[in-house]
């Protein structure tokens, strides 16, 4: 018997419906729009995000459930949804010129961006394993296409193929973990699974242990923690830069949200079983990401390894797993989105017809010809290093605070020492920009939209660095519902 659909349930999924419908409308509008007007589709995408954002803001403090607990709308999910809208909107602003230069098809590009966002939104709101998988796959399939959307060149297609093969494998592993969990607990619902596992450690039960490890591998692939990170540098380098920027921050944020829900809600009682695993992965991820980034000459590859390193830092929040830990992870995701989009934004500006602008050497003397862009890049690099007075410092501060609070001071020491290592490769970019003379004049692909986006993230990076109280308060308020 079909249960009746209540209005409340429709309300809970309203943001997802808006974004999905908007994506379809853009696809249709693409057909009806003359070729010259098609860049305007970007603004249609922004409008869709604006409407969805308004819906989420209206539902900001509500806790709704839909489809018998499969879908949860709580402040925690809303926090991540707002983050996703912001990141997607900034990506669209940065894309307008870039898709022209790369000769990417407008309508599909924006539609798939929105569909991927919709998938990630479903992920952060899911209360059921199947719902997680649904969102995961919607986002993943959209991203496979987005990565390879530029079919005029070899590199994106290669990246897309790699991403597809490895991504499908990770999805399969994840699905297998889900089926094991279902077999052991008798339910696909997170809450029911949590009740079944409330007894405590699971080390004695091989089925559950395998389920946990498989789920961990699936999540690990998506957020790029070692040893599941191998795809990251190749895909990040090959994908169109706007897509790299988008997936580096949104996939990470949404997956960490689900990661938190599954590991803290479902496997919360078995914490002692997974903490040592995660600590080992965390250290390995920080070490591999930071050390490998040092030798990169391509800035997209460097930022790929840096994103691996940042996934390692963020993992500290999950390992700690208490209110402070979760809050710090949420804060970290927001801050990482801001500063990483900023850094990629400047990389996007460097792409002009006939010039890739991805080798770090090509950036020599940027400060001379484009002081504003150079200063913005300085801010983002300093923030990624985690130095005050930028947002990156605030984010790391709370993560390490959570670690010290949980008696993991040694992990914080490892983290800060590797931050010192990271200063080397981030500052190398600053050094090339400010202290080397240009080989030839640099031109940037400025657009008003891109300038506005960069200004926004640069100001946000500094503002959160100087006055983080509002963001900290909001993240603290949103976290409480997750942990009883």
């Amino acid at each position, binding site marked *: 018997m079909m249960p009746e659909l209540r209005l409340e349930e429709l309300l809970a999924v309203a943001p997802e419906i808006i974004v999905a419908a908007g994506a379809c409308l853009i696809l249709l509008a693409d057909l009806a729009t003359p070729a010259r007007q098609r860049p305007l589709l970007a603004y249609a995408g922004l409008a869709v995000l604006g409407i969805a954002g308004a819906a989420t803001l209206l539902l900001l403090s509500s806790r709704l459930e839909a489809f018998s607990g499969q879908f949860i709308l709580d402040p925690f999910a809303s926090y991540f949804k707002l983050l996703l809208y912001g990141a997607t909107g900034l990506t669209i602003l940065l894309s307008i010129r870039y898709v022209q230069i790369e000769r990417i098809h407008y309508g599909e590009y924006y539609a798939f961006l929105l569909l991927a966002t919709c998938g990630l939104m479903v992920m952060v709101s899911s209360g059921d394993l199947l719902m997680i998988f649904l969102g995961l796959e919607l986002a993943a399939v959209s991203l496979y296409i987005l990565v390879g959307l530029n079919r005029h060149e070899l590199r994106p297609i290669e990246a897309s193929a790699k991403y597809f093969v490895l991504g499908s494998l990770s999805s399969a592993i994840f699905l297998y973990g889900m089926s094991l969990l279902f077999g052991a607990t008798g339910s696909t619902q997170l809450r029911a699974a949590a009740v079944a596992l409330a007894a405590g450690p699971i080390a004695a039960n091989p089925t559950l242990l395998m389920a946990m490890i498989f789920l961990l591998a699936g999540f690990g692939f998506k957020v790029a923690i070692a040893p599941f990170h191998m795809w990251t540098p190749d895909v990040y380098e090959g994908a169109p830069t706007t897509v790299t920027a988008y997936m580096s921050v949104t996939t990470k944020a949404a997956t960490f949200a689900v990661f938190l829900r599954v590991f803290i809600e479902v496997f919360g009682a078995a914490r002692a079983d997974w903490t040592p695993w995660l600590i080992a992965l965390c250290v390995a991820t920080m070490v591999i990401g930071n050390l490998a980034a040092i030798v990169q000459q391509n800035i997209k590859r460097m930022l790929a390894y840096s994103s691996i390193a940042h996934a390692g830092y963020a993992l500290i929040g999950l390992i700690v797993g208490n209110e402070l830990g979760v809050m710090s992870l949420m804060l970290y995701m927001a801050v990482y989105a801001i500063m990483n989009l900023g850094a990629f934004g400047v990389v996007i500006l460097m792409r002009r017809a006939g010039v890739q602008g991805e080798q770090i050497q090509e950036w020599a003397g940027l400060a001379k010809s484009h002081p504003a862009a150079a200063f913005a890049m300085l801010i983002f690099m300093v923030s990624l290093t985690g130095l*005050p007075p930028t947002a990156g410092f605030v984010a790391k501060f709370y993560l390490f605070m959570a670690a010290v609070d949980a008696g993991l001071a040694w992990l914080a020491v490892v983290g800060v020492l590797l931050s*010192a290592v990271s*200063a080397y490769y981030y500052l190398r970019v600053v050094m090339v920009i400010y202290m080397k003379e240009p080989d030839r004049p640099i031109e940037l692909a400025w657009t008003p939209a891109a300038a506005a986006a960069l200004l926004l993230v640069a100001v946000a990076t500094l503002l959160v660095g100087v006055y983080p109280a509002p963001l900290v308060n909001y993240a603290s308020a949103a976290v409480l519902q997750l942990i009883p």
Partner: protein
Amino acid sequence: MDVLLSIVIFLPAAAAALLPLLRGDEAVKRFALAATLVNFALSLPLWAAFDPATPAMQYVAEASWIPRFDIYYRVGLDGISLPLVLLTTGLMPICVLCSWRAIDRKVTEFMISLLLMETAMIGVFAALDFVLFYIFWEAMLIPMYLIIGVWGGPNRLYAAIKFFLYTLAGSLLLLVALLALYFEGGRTFDLTKLMGQPYSPLFQQLIFLAFFLAFAIKVPMFPFHTWLPDAHVEAPTAGSVILASVLLKMGAYGFLRFCLPMTPYASQAWMPWIAALSVIAIVYGAYMALAQDDLKKLIAYSSVSHMGFVTLGIFVFNAQGIEGALLQMINHGIATGALFLCVGVLYDRTHSRLIADYGGLARTMPLFAVCLMIFVLSSLGLPGTNSFVGEFLVLVGAFRVSPFVATLAALGIILAAVYLLWMVQRVMFGVSPPSWRWPDLSWREAVTLVPLVGLVFWIGFYPDPFLSRMHSSVAALVQQVNPAAEPESNLLVRLLEPFR
């Protein structure tokens, strides 16, 4: 609520924000000079109105910042930080002036970096909240990195990144230490509340080691000093002056503000080791200075030697030693800063820092020769100059703890006379290269040097205005770290103490 101190902290940053609006390098320089002069003038009332009778913090201003974690914007001064704030505000106009001609490209960016440095440096000395302190402490790195790396000498890229990574590695451990103190000290970042708490000995040892690494690199103590000669040699004159006069003092200030009051047990336990490292720095720095053929390198190694006196004075835990160290911090800031200015004067004319390239300058540049001689004499601690008072007090303090250590340290003064006077002899006297006839000090250069000459003699003959402001704060500090009578005085026996 006292806003004057906050104005002094943030006025330079506000001025830096206005600089990009100005047109023309000349206007930028004038505006930066005006800003630093106004800031110096504003800091004078802090000095004049300071109440020397109380060890409590004065001019305290407080505002809630991140309430959820009890993080405050909280600033204030006591007798330890006040002289350092004045030193900073006083030196900044000089730094702007000495860059007037030397910096000829990207002037706006340079002045912005200088002014941001000033805000961060004053902030470090004035902060009374650990998070605020840390933010100012780290915020200095980027402007200084740019000053060395953009406007420095030929090998500037290497020197800049070395400076940056060394200091960053040290100070990041400070971050972990401050977080640990937050939880151990009752969930507060208030420095005054974190002091004098009964932390367990093991906890103190761990915190002390983190503190020590951060501050010893900054001072820099032997064997963490290797970044200093590189940074000094490559930095432009203003950068060298800021490095030598203010940045090095932050390490010593950190020892005074954090190690002694927060980890007194560990400080006592590690004292023989630090005394040993200090004496090594004094003698080794002096020996290295003897061997240098580059003027800036010579002064850099002399800094290592002189800062050895400062750390030695701090870690003898008595009033003479600490007051001497504090005064020596000011003295070193004046004398060494002035010596770097003198090298800058020469470098602007000849674009050479090699001692061998000079000779007979006393004949062509008499006024310059007089100034250099005064600063050299001050630097080697001649009675009547400022450094004599400071070094004497440090040696008195050290003698009370260990005559052996004091004797070894005194060796450093003799060596200082050797390398400094020998340098003067080679640069000032003898035969000048025939083609060189350089003009004497311009009025602008004279304006940078003459006030420092005045200070050399003022502190040399009448140090009381400086010492009297330190007395009660230092007495309170000594009480905190060393409440009992003098401990076992045989330092060789006490070398094993940290490991018991």
